[in-house]
């Protein structure tokens, strides 16, 4: 499906396509870019985009954004996702950046924003805790003011790529006596501070993406507080809204679906009793993608005309993640018995993986993508959001 583009937007699309083709680092084309790259490798594309001035499509021009229209932002997102480029670190550019330029003071903007853009600072997100998942307002990590410092104690978990991080943005409780939502502050913490410990959590796919982060008497200068003390919940909700903007994942789903079709063609013979089911399931998923893409285009067109998209982001999150989970599950089923094999973690000494190469990441992708319906506000939470906003319940 194509957007009906103005000549200017069509030229922009061509420019983006050509730029990706010429500049996307070959080094980053590995079997599973989300797990197989070193920190340095995963920053290569970030740096290319930074030099081009395209690293932060969402940001206003004054802070280093490219000043694109909604349509151009959408085109960029679509082209990069279709081409399978690794998105720049979301926690830096998409999440904490907008919080800093929206709610931060002048000094914070000058200190942090340029380093986010350039990729010098790697950020991670200190939201979830062992006792606070979907119910974020119950965070128990405390920050107690002592002179010009906060003393922070607590335990953050599911912290994505904290092993690479220079900074962590945290929700901390600054007023234990207030109602859950009103005693929370938004604090920026240097990962090199004494008292910060990172412990890997290995997930069911065998990868190390997430971590526990322990904070023990970590001293944080008060100048690292964003906005006002005890107003953190407002900033956190603002950030979560950004997190969900582009979770339809049309480009990614389309790529994985094409791959699935090729695998099924080779693996599942026409006289296999399950052949028809694969055909039907694939067609149904393809139609799910088409309908979601048409919905996304409809919403983008409305936004370009100044119409509030409402909780469209929640709809995209729910359907986008369901679709991708279905694709990875079917791919895993398509490779038959080799679905038993799990590629070992890159640091392991044993790299033998049986079966055809196209199936090597099927198991880990299938397993890893179970997270999609849980993170970023679980799909049940998204249902609640739509129920409230659209149905008035």
């Amino acid at each position, binding site marked *: 499906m194509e957007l009906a583009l103005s000549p200017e937007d069509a030229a922009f699309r061509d420019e983006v396509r050509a730029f990706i083709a010429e500049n996307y680092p070959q080094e980053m084309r590995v079997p599973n870019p989300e797990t197989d790259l070193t920190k340095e490798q995963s920053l290569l594309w970030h740096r290319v985009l930074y030099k081009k001035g395209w690293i932060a499509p969402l940001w206003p021009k004054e802070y280093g954004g490219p000043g694109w229209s909604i349509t151009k932002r959408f085109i960029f997102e679509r082209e990069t996702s279709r081409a399978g480029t690794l998105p720049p670190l979301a926690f830096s550019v998409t999440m904490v950046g907008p919080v800093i330029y929206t709610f931060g003071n002048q000094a914070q903007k000058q200190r942090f924003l340029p380093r986010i853009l350039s990729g010098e600072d790697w950020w991670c997100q200190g939201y979830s805790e062992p006792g606070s998942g979907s119910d974020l307002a119950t965070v128990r990590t405390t920050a107690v003011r002592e002179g010009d410092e906060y003393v922070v104690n607590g335990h953050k978990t599911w912290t994505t790529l904290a092993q690479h991080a220079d900074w962590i943005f945290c929700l901390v409780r600054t007023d234990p006596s207030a109602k859950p939502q009103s005693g929370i502050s938004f604090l920026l913490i240097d990962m090199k501070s004494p008292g910060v410990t990172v412990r890997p959590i290995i997930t069911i796919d065998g990868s190390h993406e997430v971590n526990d982060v322990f904070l023990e008497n970590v001293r944080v200068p008060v100048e690292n507080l964003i906005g006002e003390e005890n107003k953190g919940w407002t900033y956190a909700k603002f950030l979560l809204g950004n997190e969900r903007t582009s979770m339809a994942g049309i480009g990614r789903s389309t790529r994985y679906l094409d791959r699935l079709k090729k695998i099924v063609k080779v693996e599942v013979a026409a006289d296999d009793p399950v052949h028809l089911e694969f055909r039907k399931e694939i067609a149904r998923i393809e139609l799910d993608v088409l309908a979601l893409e048409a919905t996304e285009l409809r919403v983008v067109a409305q936004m370009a005309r100044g119409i509030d998209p409402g909780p469209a982001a929640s709809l995209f999150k729910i359907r986008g993640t369901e679709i991708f989970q279905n694709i990875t599950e079917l791919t895993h089923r398509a490779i038959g018995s080799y679905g038993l094999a799990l590629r070992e973690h890159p640091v392991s000494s044993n790299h033998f993986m049986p079966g055809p190469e196209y199936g090597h990441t099927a198991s880990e992708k299938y397993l890893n993508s179970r997270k999609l319906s849980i993170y970023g506000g679980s799909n049940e939470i998204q249902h609640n959001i739509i129920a409230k906003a*659209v*149905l008035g319940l």
Partner: protein
Amino acid sequence: MDIQFTEEQELLRSTVQRLLRDQYDFHSRRKIVTSDEGWSPKQWEAFAELGLLAAPFAEQSGGLGGGPLATMIVMREFGRHLVVEPFVETIVLAGGLIESEGSTAQKQEFLPGIVSGKSIWALAWTEKNSRFDLGSVTTTARREGGAYLLDGEKAAVIAAPWADYLIVSARISGKQQDRSGVSLFIVDRRATDLHLRGFKTIDGRRAAEVTLRDVRGQLLGTEGGGVPALETCRDRAIAALCAEAVGVMDELNSVTLEYTKTRKQFGVALSTFQVLQHRMVDMFIAHQEALSLMQHLNLSLSNDEGGIARLASGAKAKIGYAGKFVADQAVQLHGGMGMSDELNVGHYFKRMSSINIQFGDPAYHVLRYAQLDTAA
């Protein structure tokens, strides 16, 4: 892509909305459906007067040039009100076929009657064993002098009891499923030796089993070109039915939400139960996706883009499944009331069920969509 309506399209939409709001509420519809004839010639006249019947046709055909988007606008509103009058049969199917396949003389002879609401048409393509295969035809046509004589049986022809004319697919050569030997013929529905056995359909319409015994027919389009003509015509009909299905979902979702907010059980409104809230969110999402895909199909059709056959099948499947889900859940959430003939919900359910049969059910179309995938 979102469709930003032109002034003319907005006008068409508000005209249909006003007319149906004033004259086609659920009570009035019930009267029409339970009348002897089962449809309302008076409503049809009103549709003609307001230009709805002329809206999709090209200007040189005596229409208003609105194309598929005009049909889309009308059908979505018809879906909201469960209009039973044969707009799809007369305007989209027969009118569309005459406009695309007819000779100049045929267009001059028949289109004015269609556009002005004077004649009702039906399309007789299904047979007892054809299921959804447009090329599976046993009814025969043989040439005699300047005319053709048709012989055979057609099954479940919607609107046939109301029609003045039928367009009948019949075989001039080949075996039952040969694509190439089928032609279309215009037949006078009141011809001698054309017999109807009428019946009521689940959605409040009338249909008939049609028997033709050497009935004179006038060739429409080229000899042997019946199947491709029917295929194109089916794509247009699917686009119209998809718009109608979205209208049905519009209404089902809003009445269900309303009902759960007012109906109390265990001392609270049903809408306070999270399991029902989430169900209704899924109904909302199904509706949004159906709407997007329906618009995409109609826009593609109106821009005359390639790949329409596959897209139409895809939309018919996806929207069919979505509509079935919404209709199932609407009845379920209404509890016992959903089963009552008195309430409108069950009637929307029945219309959705019959849309899912017309021109092929969702499973048929999802597999056809897979079949037409050049990449697979």
